[in-house]
């Protein structure tokens, strides 16, 4: 027993302590290639001193229990997903050496997209891709790499290329991508091939250690049980049948060209974090209201017009100022089925109490910026509500006599200011004066929060004043 322990390379468990049952033997069939590959990897781990840096990703398939054998951090993942999981493991632990161990069903079938994308992103990962041309553990079914004519449990009459297509050559396929650095196909069928595999495994690991990017070794490996071949003859079978289809050799090698690159994680102090999130620590200033009429308290406001008239940002101006004055406020754009038709609108609620529904059927205030909006929504206003409309654009006065209407020639006034796009802000200024619920000072203070384009702040502040002056005695 002691001798056995000494023989095992570092990185390999002396006893397979994660394995239930017999802790001395592997779970693989006699003649299986996985054992050989594990040993080659374990030796590389020892020689390259990787044991304490390695995170091994165990796949689904016969090698689902890779974690039994390697004395390194290990994660078992869903079928085919190893490259996605490994992507995040590596980004979280840039100093770790992250290794995916995948079979052919795992990598080339169900996980086709994950390997393709990780390879193309050039993730700093190493993939050992074991190609034995069959699904082992699940019961000898067809793999993407099964050979033409090969009998499997799901191709009992042999793989028919007109039905299942020809085998997939992943080493060549992935080598076509820009992202990967090093890809090689090797085999285990004789000592020379094995020693090449040993070299390729080390190349691939070094590629990651040196920060040169994505590496993969496709290893042609025996599955005597799946092939139903006597383990004594599996090497010849492999060489004879798989050899012609899967040529050995390097399909991509940019190790010399790629400059070493290492991801660095940085820690950010709280203050820098808040600044980066555009969060200021200042207490909001509370400014008093000067309500002109109790009817104007706690308004639900609908602003409506065409897209492009600044409806949403006019609403956001009011809502931001409302927050600044310490009110509960909400702003919601027209959403879902309401987006149908030619009007864009939003709802703003300003309330001393918490706001229930952020939209209401019968608003207290309607600001109409075009005729369709006025025609569509004026009827919704409850009696006594306030209707403000852009009388430059809407030349027909509203018909309802039971509401308070205020015509604001906003577009004309904006034109006088030299920019017709300020009509929305003029309307907002007029609303401020008319209702008194929000102060001009609060509005001016929060303008930068509501406007996307900062160079327009000054012009908008001016437009606010113009609108305010217009309505202050009406």
């Amino acid at each position, binding site marked *: 027993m002691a001798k056995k322990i000494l023989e095992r390379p570092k990185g390999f468990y002396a006893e397979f302590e994660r394995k*239930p049952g017999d802790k001395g033997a592997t779970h693989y069939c006699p003649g299986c290639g996985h054992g050989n590959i594990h040993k080659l990897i374990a030796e590389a781990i020892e020689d390259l001193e990787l*044991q*304490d*840096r390695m*995170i091994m990703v165990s796949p689904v398939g016969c090698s*689902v229990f890779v*974690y039994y054998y390697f*004395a*390194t*951090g*290990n*994660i*078992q*993942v*869903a079928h085919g*997903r190893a490259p*996605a*999981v490994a*992507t*995040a*493991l590596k*980004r*979280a*632990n840039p*100093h*770790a050496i*992250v290794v995916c161990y995948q079979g052919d069903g795992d990598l080339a079938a169900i996980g086709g*997209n*994950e390997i*393709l*994308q990780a390879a193309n992103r050039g993730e700093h990962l190493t993939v050992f891709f074991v190609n034995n041309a069959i699904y082992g553990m699940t019961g000898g079914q067809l793999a993407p790499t099964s050979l033409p004519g090969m009998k499997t449990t799901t191709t009992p009459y042999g793989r028919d290329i007109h039905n299942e297509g020809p085998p997939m050559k992943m080493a060549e396929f992935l080598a076509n991508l820009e992202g990967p650095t090093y890809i090689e196909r090797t085999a285990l069928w004789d000592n020379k091939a094995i020693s090449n595999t040993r070299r390729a495994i080390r190349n691939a690991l070094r590629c990651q250690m040196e920060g040169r990017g994505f590496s993969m070794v496709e290893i042609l490996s025996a599955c005597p049980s799946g092939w139903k071949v006597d383990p004594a003859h599996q090497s010849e079978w492999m060489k004879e049948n798989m050899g012609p289809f899967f040529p050995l050799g390097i399909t991509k090698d940019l190790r010399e060209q790629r400059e070493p690159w290492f991801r660095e*994680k940085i820690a*950010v102090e*709280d203050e*820098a*974090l808040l600044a*980066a*999130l*555009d*969060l200021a*620590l200042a207490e*909001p200033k509370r400014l008093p209201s000067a309500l002109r009429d109790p009817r104007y308290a706690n308004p639900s406001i609908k602003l409506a017009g065409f897209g492009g008239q600044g409806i949403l940002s006019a609403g956001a101006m009011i*809502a931001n100022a409302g*927050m600044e004055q310490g009110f*509960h*406020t*909400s*702003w*919601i*754009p027209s*959403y*879902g*089925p309401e987006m149908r038709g030619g009007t864009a609108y939003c709802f703003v609620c300003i309330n001393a109490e*918490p*706001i*229930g*529904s*952020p939209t*209401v059927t019968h608003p207290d205030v309607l600001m109409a910026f075009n005729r369709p909006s006025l025609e569509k929504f004026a009827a919704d206003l409850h009696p006594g509500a306030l209707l403000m409309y852009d009388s430059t654009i809407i030349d027909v006065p509203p018909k309802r006599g039971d509401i308070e209407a205020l015509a604001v020639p906003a577009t004309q006034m904006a034109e006088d200011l030299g920019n017709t796009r300020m009509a929305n802000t003029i309307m907002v200024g007029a609303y401020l004066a008319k209702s008194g619920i929000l102060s001009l000072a609060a509005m001016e203070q929060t303008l930068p*929060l509501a406007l996307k384009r900062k160079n327009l702040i000054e012009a908008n502040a001016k437009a606010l004043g113009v609108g305010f002056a217009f309505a202050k005695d009406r």
Partner: protein
Amino acid sequence: MAKEFIKGNDAIVKAALLAGCESFYGYPITPASEIAHAAAKYFPRVGRTFLQAESEIGSIQMVYGAAAAGERTMTASSGPGMSLKQEGLSYLAGSELPCVVVDIMRGGPGLGNIAPEQSDYFQAVKGGGHGNYKLIVLAPNSAQEMCDLTIRAFELADRYRNPALILADGYIGQMMEPVEFPPPVKGLPAKPWALRGEKISDANLINSIFLDPDELESHNRHLQAKYALIAEREVMVEEYHTGDADFVLVGYGIVSRILRSVVERGRADGHRLGLLRPITLCPYPSVRVAELAGRVKGFLVCELSNGQMVEDIRLAVEGRVPVHFYGRMGGNVPTVEEIYAVVKGQLSVTATA
């Protein structure tokens, strides 16, 4: 603290960063894409990871990897994407990895539309993927709660080593409201089980495979005991005027906001209406529902669905009083008047009975 007038979707991202979230793995889907947009903007600014994955499957598997590495990590999606994420969620739950997933629900089934529904309730609270597991499910109804519950979700996920889901709808995501952001979270929990690529974590194994039936059963029993503990400790519910209510309205998310207005309207007319709003959908406030069932005349459950949460109310009420349902689908959101009309109809039935 810092206050901002902000969309719910954006509030989630800022809250996540304040909660110490280190990585966001996203995939675009309306109406959740805005969250990915904000994450793409803010995460790299502070040295955290944002990556657009190759697929919804890829993104949840990246979350699995980041969670295994001990990071606070998250993703966001909507119905069709959530369906694809179920595989990963099952693995996360099976391997007991913490993470936060946001589902901004849209209309379904199939491609449906991008308007708000609450039809992912079953998928969210009953497991969703294969196996005996549950997610912790939180349902915000304001931009402030998009912030607060995101932070809470990270805490709960870490405390119980379980994925936590924020279940919201496009309405809550799109709405702007004032949000008070708390200071950055201090002292994140140690995760000695995580994979660090260091000597201390050589023996660590993240795994959900238990070949032996007895072992798998005991793993499952352990999970169930954990869910029971969460149910005992972490239920959150908001009540409005339930103290003297004889008829209780129940809804979550945007619907609860509308119901609040219905309660006010009803109270103004002299009806003793109350509102029960589950904030945790899993664990469900069944105990509180059962208490209320002992003294009210009936419930009306409103959802943007065919009636999913109503089943949990009925289970808790156990037939003691009538439980009515009113739902809209397809992205149609009921008005206060619409629901109030239904309520008045039920009240007159209850009165005659």
